[in-house]
C-alpha cells in the first residue's frame, strides 16, 4: 500500500465514524461534514494533478499517476453524489446518518483499493465496497430497490468466492500475493488459472457481458443518487480497476498473451450487447445501464491489449466514463424528481423547461459517443489505436462501429426526453433546483476542458 495516499483513505473513514456522534444535535452537521471531507480531499488531489498539468512539468512528478487519477475520480464522483443528495430531499425513511457514513466508507474503501499493492488487500476493500453498495441500494423504500439489492447480493457475491479461490491458488503458487512478486516471477500454468478465476470474478463484479444481467435491474431499482454512485464509480473501481491492474502486471508477458483472447472476446461482447441492448430500452435509467455495459466493454478491450498505450487508454476511459455517466445518471435523477417517471415514452420536450439538464446531457452523450473535442473522443481514439497497434484490427473496427451505435441510441434518448413539443401534462415542470445542477454543470465543464486541453493531460497519462 502506498503510504503517500493513506490519508485520502483514512480521513473519510474517520469522518464516517464521527458522523453518528456529531449528528445527534443536527442532521445538517452530518451533511456539512460529509461534503467538507470530500471537498478538501478533492481540492488536495486536484491541486497535485492541476499543478503539474498547468505548469506542464512532469519531470518532478513522482507519484503513482494511476492511483492519483483514480483517487481524483473517486473524490469527484463521491463529492458530486454527496452534494446532490444534500439538496435532493431524501425520502424520510432513509437513515441519513448511515446513508452519508456508508458513502464515506465506500469512498475510503475505494481509495484503499486503488492504493493496494497486493491481491488480498484488494479483495478485502472490494468486499467492503460490495457490502456498502448492498446497503445503499436498499435506501429507497420501494419493492424494486429491495429486489435490486437481493439480485446484487446473489449475483455478485459468488464472484467474491471465485476471486478468493483464485487468490488462494496464487498463494499456493508463490507463497504471497504481492503484485511485484507476481510480476517478477516466472509465470506458469497455475498463475494463468488463478488469474483467470480472479478476472472472471471481477468481470461479474464489473457487470461485463456475459455476466451483465444484474446491472440494468440494480441501476434501475436503486435510489437515484445511488444509481449514479454505483454506475459512476463503484462498479468500476470494484470490478474493472482490478482487470486494468492485472493487465498492467502482465504487461508484455506470455500469460498476458494467453488471457488476452478471453478478455478481447468478453470486451467485444459487452460493447455489442450493451449498445444493441440500449437501443431497445424504454426506461431512461435502464438505457444508461446498458450504455454503461457497452462502455465498460471498451475499457476491457483496451486493457486486453496488454500494451502501455492500451492501459493508459483504459485508465483514461475509466476516468471519462465516471464523469459522463455521473452527469447522465444525475440528470435522470433530476428528471425523475420533476416528472415522477423515467419512462421515455411518457416524456417529451423537456428542453423547454429544463435547459441546463438538457444541455449537460448533450455534452455527456457527445463525450460518450466519442465526438471531438470532448474528453471521450480522445479515450476512444486511444483505445482504437491501441487495438490496431496490437494487431486486433477486427476489434478496432467493431469498437469504431459501436461508437456510431452509441451516438444513435443517445440521440434517440435525447429526442424522446428533451426534444419536440412539450405535452400539456408536463407544462408545470420546472428546472431542477440550482444546487442540484452544480455538480452536473461542473463535471460537464470538466469534460470540455479535458477534451480541449488534452495535450496537457497526455503527459500525465504517459506516467501510468
Amino acid at each position, binding site marked *: *500500500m502506498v503510504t503517500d495516499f493513506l490519508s485520502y*483513505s*483514512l480521513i473519510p*473513514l474517520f469522518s*464516517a*465514524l464521527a458522523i453518528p456522534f456529531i449528528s445527534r444535535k443536527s442532521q445538517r452537521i452530518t451533511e456539512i461534514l460529509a461534503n467538507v471531507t470530500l471537498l478538501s480531499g478533492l481540492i488536495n488531489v486536484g491541486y497535485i494533478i492541476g499543478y503539474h498539468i498547468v505548469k506542464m512539468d512532469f519531470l518532478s512528478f513522482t507519484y503513482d499517476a494511476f492511483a492519483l487519477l483514480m483517487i481524483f475520480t473517486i473524490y469527484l464522483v463521491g463529492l458530486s453524489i454527496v452534494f446532490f443528495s444534500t439538496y435532493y430531499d431524501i425520502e424520510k*425513511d*432513509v*437513515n441519513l*446518518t*448511515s*446513508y452519508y*457514513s*456508508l458513502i464515506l*466508507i465506500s469512498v*475510503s*474503501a475505494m481509495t*484503499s483499493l486503488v492504493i*493496494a499493492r497486493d491481491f*488480498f*488487500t484488494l479483495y*478485502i*476493500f472490494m*468486499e*467492503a465496497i460490495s*457490502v*456498502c453498495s*448492498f*446497503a*445503499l441500494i*436498499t*435506501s429507497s*423504500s*420501494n*419493492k424494486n430497490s*429491495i429486489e435490486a439489492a437481493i439480485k446484487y447480493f446473489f449475483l455478485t457475491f459468488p464472484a467474491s468466492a471465485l476471486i478468493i479461490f483464485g487468490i488462494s491458488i496464487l*498463494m499456493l503458487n508463490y507463497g504471497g500475493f504481492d503484485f511485484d512478486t507476481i510480476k517478477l516471477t516466472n509465470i506458469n500454468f497455475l498463475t494463468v488459472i488463478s488469474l483467470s478465476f480472479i478476472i472472471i470474478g471481477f468481470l461479474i463484479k464489473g457487470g461485463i457481458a456475459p455476466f451483465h444481467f444484474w446491472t440494468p435491474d440494480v441501476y434501475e431499482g436503486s435510489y437515484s443518487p445511488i444509481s449514479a454512485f454505483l454506475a459512476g464509480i463503484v462498479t468500476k473501481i470494484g470490478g474493472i480497476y482490478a482487470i486494468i491492474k492485472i493487465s498492467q502486471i502482465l504487461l508484455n508477458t506470455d500469460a498476458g498473451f494467453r488471457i488476452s483472447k478471453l478478455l478481447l472476446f468478453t470486451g467485444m461482447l459487452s460493447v455489442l450487447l450493451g449498445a444493441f441492448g440500449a437501443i431497445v430500452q424504454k426506461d431512461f435509467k435502464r438505457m444508461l445501464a446498458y450504455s454503461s455495459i457497452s462502455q465498460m466493454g471498451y475499457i476491457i478491450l483496451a486493457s486486453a491489449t496488454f500494451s502501455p498505450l492500451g492501459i493508459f487508454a483504459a485508465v483514461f476511459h475509466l476516468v471519462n466514463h465516471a464523469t459522463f455517466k455521473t452527469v447522465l445518471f444525475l440528470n435522470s435523477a433530476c428528471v425523475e424528481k420533476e416528472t415522477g417517471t423515467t419512462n421515455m415514452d411518457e416524456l417529451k420536450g423537456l428542453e423547454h423547461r429544463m435547459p441546463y439538464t438538457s444541455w449537460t446531457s448533450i455534452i455527456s452523450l457527445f463525450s460518450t459517443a466519442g465526438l471531438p473535442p470532448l474528453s471521450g473522443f480522445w479515450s476512444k481514439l486511444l483505445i482504437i489505436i491501441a487495438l490496431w497497434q496490437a494487431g486486433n484490427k477486427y476489434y478496432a473496427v467493431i469498437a469504431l462501429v459501436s461508437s456510431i451505435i452509441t451516438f444513435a441510441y443517445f440521440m434517440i434518448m435525447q429526442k424522446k426526453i428533451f426534444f419536440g413539443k412539450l405535452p400539456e401534462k408536463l407544462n408545470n415542470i420546472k428546472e431542477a433546483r440550482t444546487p442540484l445542477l452544480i455538480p452536473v454543470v461542473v463535471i460537464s465543464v470538466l469534460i470540455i476542458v479535458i477534451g480541449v486541453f488534452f495535450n496537457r493531460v497526455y503527459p500525465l497519462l504517459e506516467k501510468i
Partner: protein
Amino acid sequence: MVLYLLIYFIIILSATISVIAKKLINSAIMLAVLSIGVSILLFIYGAVWAAVFELSVCAGLITVLFISAVSLVKNDEESLSENRVKYIVFPFILIAIIIISSIFVPEYFLELQKFSTYNTEKEKPIGEFIWIYRGVDIIGQLTLLASSVFIIKHIFFKNKNIKENGGDI
C-alpha cells in the same frame, strides 16, 4: 500432546455450547472461543496466514457483528418459548466424541504435522506477524467493521419504519 487435546476439547466444547446455548449472545461468544481455538491450532501447525485470518476475521470481526446484531434483536429474544430439552443429548454425544478422539486423534495430529510447510514463519510472534506483515488488513477490517455497523443501522432503521407503517413496504 496434552496441549493439542486441550485445544481440541475447547473447540468441541465451545461448538456444542454455541449450539445449545439459549441466549444468542452466549452462542456468539462461544463461536468466538471456537475460532480462537481453531486459530491456535492452525498457528501451532505453522499455517500462520490461515491462523491470522481466522483470528482476526472469524474471532474478531464476525463476533462483533453477531453481538451487534443480537443486541438489536434483544427484545424479541425474551419472548422466545422454544423447548430445548432435546438438546440435552449433545453433552452425551460430546463425551462419546472425546473418548473416541482420545484414541484416534493423536495419531492424526502427528500425521498432519508432516504437511506443515511454513515452519520458518512459525518462530515469529503472532503480534509481529499481524502488525508488520498484515498491518494494512487492520485498516481493511476497521473499514469492514464500520461498514457492517452502518449497514445494520441502515437496514434496521427501514425495518422499524416498515413495522410502524403496518408492514407495507
